[in-house]
């Protein structure tokens, strides 16, 4: 459903992403892995139109995403969470999540200022939707807190909720488990599992052991290129993959062990 073909990104003389194809079906959990600097976040930036491409196409169903501006992407159903959460410090937890619904709530300037009953109703509906999602992650009781007061792990969870609340067709998650404690990770795993049945989740992640069991496919990038793609177990045993993560000798050992 989301089809990215031949994505190439150059920064000056450096080719950060080199002819990468990736496609994501309607539903399921898919992992994008690879060492640091492999170009994974850059790829995400392309998909969300933060970053220009030298070459390539991105289609979501029939819609050509590259023809749209960054703020139009979420309207078509692509939402993302960030490596460093990128929360809004001057808004409360609840308000952060409500911004996530910006594209789904029809409240304008005058309506918001005058606040007639119809507008109030729409705001309340948005609030209710945000509430249900926050409750699933046990964050509702923190709704009036400021993000800066939350532990880092909860900030990352908040970022995920913020992305999910717009009911995207494709959810891009950038290292969602980084910084989570052992108590917070299971909550996120469960959420991803549940959401993976309703929408497509493409996740950049290093902590593969946490998500191997719930993902149906892993794509590995290195130096801007796709070097492997397939079921988690197969990819994990792929010598090329092992080599890029652990070095040549480890790969040879792995092959010898088979």
């Amino acid at each position, binding site marked *: 459903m989301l089809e990215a073909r031949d994505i190439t990104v150059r920064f000056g003389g450096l080719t950060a992403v080199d002819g990468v194809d990736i496609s994501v079906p309607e539903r399921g959990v898919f992992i994008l892995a690879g060492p640091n600097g492999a170009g994974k*976040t850059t790829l995400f*930036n392309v998909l969300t139109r*933060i970053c220009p491409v030298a070459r390539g196409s991105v289609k979501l169903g029939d819609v050509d995403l590259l023809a749209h501006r960054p703020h139009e992407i979420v309207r078509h159903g692509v939402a993302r969470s*960030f490596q460093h959460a*990128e929360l809004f410090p001057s808004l409360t937890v609840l308000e952060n999540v409500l911004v996530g619904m910006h594209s789904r709530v029809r409240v304008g300037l005058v309506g918001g200022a005058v606040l007639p009953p119809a507008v109030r109703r729409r705001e309340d509906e948005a609030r209710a939707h945000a509430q249900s999602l926050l409750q699933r992650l046990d964050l509702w009781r923190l709704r009036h807190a400021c993000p800066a007061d939350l532990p880092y792990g909860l900030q990352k969870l908040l970022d995920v909720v913020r992305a999910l609340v717009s009911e995207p067709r494709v959810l891009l998650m950038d290292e969602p488990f980084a910084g989570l404690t052992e108590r917070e990770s299971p909550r996120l795993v469960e959420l991803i599992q549940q959401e993976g049945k309703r929408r497509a989740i493409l996740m950049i992640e290093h902590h593969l052991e946490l998500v191997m069991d719930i993902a149906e496919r892993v794509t590995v990038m290195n130096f801007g290129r796709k070097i492997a793609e397939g079921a988690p177990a197969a990819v994990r045993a792929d010598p090329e993959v092992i080599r890029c993560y652990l070095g040549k000798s480890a790969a040879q050992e792995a092959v010898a062990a088979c």
Partner: protein
Amino acid sequence: MLELILQIALAGLAQGALYALVALGLVVISNTSNVLNFAQGAMGMAVTYVAWALLTYAGAPFWLAVGAACIAAFAIGALAQIVLLARLGGASDMTQIVLTLGLAMLIEGLVGLGFGYNPRPMALPMSMGPLLVGPVVLRPQDIVNLSFLVVLSLALAVLFTRTSIGLTMRSITQNAFAARLMGVPVERVLSLAWGFGVLLGGAAAVLAAPTTSVTPDMMNTILIYGFAGAIMGGFGSLVGACVGGLLLGVINNFVVAFVSPQLSMTFIFALLLVVLYVRPDGLFGRKSVRKV
């Protein structure tokens, strides 16, 4: 007609020299410490009062007074950086702008309290007469302005390219964090940069004094032109600041001569809007990118 145009252009260049000086000072400060010194005009104005006081009460020779003003400017700049700006660390753009604006208000208010708002005259020593260059006349003021610009720009150029201090300043411009890691005394260099920056502003103010008279708000307009010149030059290169300031001086003079003296600021503002709309990073500026 040609003589008239040349005359206007030349006078514009001379006036633009002052804008260029202010712009240079702003860019020196902004490049090293990433702060927009909105107090540049007020600081320059303050040292002009120093010069005026020396002239009037101590009977000092003109050039001595100017020199003292420049030294005072350097001191004020360095002091401002050490005492105030250093405390801000990595604060937001708005915070820094607000701080320097508050400083400008404070300085102008204090000077107003001390000396009142009555204009004090300050004249160039009369030993020079006008110079005739072909069909155009160069007033002594013009010659002084242009000479100062040339000398100070050359001095800056030498400073930045040939001395170790200058090199250090440029390294900080590139990457303050790395510079610090490599043992560069960043704070000390920043105060030097501020000193030089305000010195340039002070020179501009003292040179402007014979025309505007010495008042607490004498530099308000010139400051804006200085900013505009720096912006046109892209707020990056010193050459850009120079060129921007000179260019603005010429344009302004033409507007004054052929359109209306009272609408000069409006015109410049409109010009600035157009330039920035077309090139948000200024004429010579380079695009800045942020990593996510």
